[in-house]
């Protein structure tokens, strides 16, 4: 089945003929060219491709932190190109969680405070923040490291804090840009398992860019980009039988 044709499932994300060009001197560079993509809720989707293929650009556009030159992107049916900057900010705050290649934790905050930050921005009450941060940190196996600052955590631990931060406000969509690129094999595997478990247990939709084969093996669906265009969009057999080591804990997040 072509994933784009699954009409019976409501689209969480719809990318319609999107192009993104960046000015360069008196010319421009085309990062994406008339790219279309539909992502249903609950998918675990990988965007693969070589460096410069437009993976990060596509994620930025879906994450509403960049605007397409042409085309439009719909998130839960809402055309994001029509939204004002403040409504886009609110949309990101509520609907989207981000995981970055370089973790991007706030260095002066502890792990718990970093996870708490999205809730703080949303105006969640102190008691609820505390409970949800504890649950989120437990879900990524870092309860014991809650009071540690990022510089005292390993790379794997930092990225798990980043994942906890991305899911703590229960977003509809988690975007991860090369999440395993800075991790060794053991930590990368743990992170992949974690993200997969979160996807299954909470029904969280994950879209991640990667060229890490270990991560691609776990994806339900792989969209391959080359020179800013989708060259293949395939379902895999990975969706069925992975372990559910965090399942019980994660249930508390819902």
């Amino acid at each position: 089945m072509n994933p784009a044709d699954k009409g019976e499932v409501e689209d969480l994300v719809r990318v319609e003929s999107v192009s993104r060009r960046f000015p360069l001197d008196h010319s421009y560079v085309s990062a994406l060219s008339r790219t279309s993509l539909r992502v249903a809720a609950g998918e675990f989707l990988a965007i693969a491709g070589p460096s410069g293929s437009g993976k990060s650009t596509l994620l930025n556009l879906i994450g509403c932190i960049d605007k397409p030159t042409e085309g439009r992107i719909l998130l839960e049916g809402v055309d994001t190109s029509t939204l004002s900057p403040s409504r886009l900010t609110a949309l990101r705050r509520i609907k989207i969680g981000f995981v970055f290649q370089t973790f991007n934790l706030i260095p002066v905050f502890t792990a718990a405070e970093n996870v708490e930050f999205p809730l703080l921005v949303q105006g969640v009450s102190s008691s609820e923040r505390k409970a949800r941060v504890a649950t989120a940190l437990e879900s990524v196996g870092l309860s014991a490291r809650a009071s540690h600052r990022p510089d005292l955590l390993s790379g794997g631990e930092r990225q798990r804090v980043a994942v906890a931060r991305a899911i703590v406000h229960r977003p509809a969509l988690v975007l991860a840009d090369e999440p395993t690129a800075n991790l060794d094999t053991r930590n990368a595997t743990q992170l992949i398992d974690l993200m997969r478990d979160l996807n299954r247990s909470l029904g969280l939709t994950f879209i991640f860019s990667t060229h890490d084969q270990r991560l691609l093996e776990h994806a339900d669906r792989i969209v391959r980009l080359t020179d800013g265009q989708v060259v293949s969009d395939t379902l895999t057999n990975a969706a069925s039988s992975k372990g559910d080591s965090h399942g019980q804990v994660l249930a508390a997040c819902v």
Partner: protein
Amino acid sequence: MGKFLLLAFRNIFRNRRRTLMTLMMVGGGVTGLLLAGGYFAFMTHGLREDTINSGLGHLQIFTADHFNRDEVRVLDTGIANWRDVAATVKSADHVRGVAPRIDFYGMVSNGTKAAGFMGSAVDPDAEKSLGFIAHGLTGREPEGKPAGEVEAMIGAGLAKSMNVKLGDGLTILAMTSDGALNGVDVQIVGIINSGIAELDARTLRITLPAAQRLLQSDRVTNLVVGLDSTANTDAVYDELIPRLKNLPQQMTLKKWIDLATYYKQVSTLFNGIFLFMGIIVFFMVLMSSVNTLLMAMMERTREIGTMLAMGTPRIWVVALFMLEATLLGAMGAVLGVAAGNLFGILLNSSGLHMPPPPGYTVAVPFKVLHVPALMIGSSILVVFSLALASILPAIRASRLQIAEALAHV
């Protein structure tokens, strides 16, 4: 809000060396302002009390015509029933006493040489009761003598010019209220060196009865009112105004500040210098902080991008940077106030003296007053300066393109 404040506070210490430099600059500015302002306050406060206690008093009463008087026949516009006026004034609250005065002019001669003088006649007992002190006096102040002898105190410059010393005699000449020239022999009992050379070259003081005999009048030029505290000047002024309206002669009441021309000039000069220093400190903190805060903003570009990506309102980013700068300013101000007071205590106990100011012949002790209003004002100045300096970096941070900020290396 608590976490936001915590974030701002911790961010201040991310680059400790830079923060230390900023704190030293801000604290140094506040310290400098406190020391300079404290010294100016010491000078003006000392000058104020000196001015009042050396004979100006807190209030002075004149006839309404006094300021239009004939410079030669000075007592034509004097207070006739001055004892009644003094009694009226003395009954008011906070009034310690009333001293009658005659200001007059004339010539003084030693037989071979003559010079002009500015004379004042006082009631020695009333002056003493008000604590009016003649600074730099050698000998003693003139006292009333029953046998008609007249004692005088003259300025050091006049004594030098007349070539006289304590115990020597002089003749003074002045115009009576009838326009006739009258003279009296005086004995020098005191020579005063006030520190103001021009004043010391003209000053002469005799007792009130002696001056009234010389000028052939029972009147006085003015009444000097001494209060229990300078702070009560306005209140007593307001109380006396209606009382003086019921008198046969129309009176004018003047506050000390209206008569202290020199004090006002010095105070205005110090205020001007202090304002100039404040402006320098303000811009020094402002210009150097803009650069420091811009550097901090550049270093945190990716972090700001992350916060914005997570849906942090841009106004929060502005507020965060301004809060950090304000906190930094407040810490610098606290440091500066502490250092300023510490240095002030050290200076006050050091016994340092400043060279005599222009027109003075005595050195001035270098002391600083600890003025709470200065501490608050200087602190507000630097905090405001830093908050202002943070606006540009804060706005630049809030306007970062998120995707570009996240890709920032």
